């Protein structure tokens, strides 16, 4: 490195006299290095700094950002909940002995036709599907938002979003069911997270 020159005298004790005065060069150098006249902004990490990952194309980054975004996660959870709810509804329709047939209207020994059974199954499947889709979307959305806000990934995100969703569902029936829903859903979500991780 070039030896720092000494100009003038360090003279009287005012201010920062410990600096070896370089005349007008030091200011110019600082401007070139960290001031306004530096040659470029931060370079992308090249080999000396260690690029640990291959540089990704713009499309890859775009897809990755989309997949990680909160909106996509919400939509995906909604769709997955819909499918799951539909399957669950169809399945439980097969297990339910009553299956929504009114005993007063039809009598106790009513044998429904296949078409009626199928219609009942479809109705039930749709209703379950809508419920699951709504709950799944709300849960995924709130969890993603809470996680983005906190900037931390731990177990509390699931619990908090479970409380929000449970509270929102229960609040329709009053404050106390809201609190119960919050607690219940938070516990459910924590249990699921615990077993999944």
């Amino acid at each position: 490195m070039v030896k720092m020159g000494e100009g003038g005298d360090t003279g009287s004790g005012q201010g920062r006299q410990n600096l070896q005065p370089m005349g007008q060069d030091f200011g110019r150098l600082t401007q070139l290095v960290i001031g306004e006249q530096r040659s470029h902004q931060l370079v992308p990490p090249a080999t000396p700094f260690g690029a640990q990952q291959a540089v990704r194309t713009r499309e890859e980054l775009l897809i990755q950002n989309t997949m990680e975004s909160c909106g996509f996660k919400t939509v995906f959870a909604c769709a997955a909940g819909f499918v799951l709810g539909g399957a669950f509804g169809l399945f439980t329709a097969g297990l339910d002995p009553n299956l929504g047939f009114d005993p007063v209207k039809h009598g106790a020994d009513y044998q429904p036709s296949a078409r009626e059974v199928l219609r009942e199954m479809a109705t039930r499947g749709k209703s379950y599907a809508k419920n699951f889709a709504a709950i799944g979307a709300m849960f995924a959305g709130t969890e993603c938002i809470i996680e983005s806000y906190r900037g931390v990934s731990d177990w509390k995100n699931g619990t908090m979003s479970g409380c929000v969703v449970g509270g929102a569902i229960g609040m329709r029936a009053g404050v106390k069911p809201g609190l119960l829903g919050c607690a219940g859903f938070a516990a459910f979500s924590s249990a699921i997270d615990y077993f999944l991780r």
Partner: protein
Amino acid sequence: MASMINQDEAMQLAAELEVEMMADMYNRMTSACQKKCIPPKYKEADLSKGESVCLDRCVAKYLEIHDRLGKKLTEMSMQDQEVMKKMQQQQQPAT
């Protein structure tokens, strides 16, 4: 007062300093943001959403602070130089 080093040497010196400074800053930034944002217990190799959000914020803040401190430092060093120039001019007519 004549310049101690000519323009070429100044540019070369600036380039060397800059490379060294950038390397140092990069290392410090990665270690600070890793310490802050990524908990030591790894469950998977991919960054989760919370971690990537935290890293974005950490890097943005670090670079902004770096910029601002650089500007402030150049301001102060220019002021220092003005003061020293004035002092030298005052002393020279006296002798």
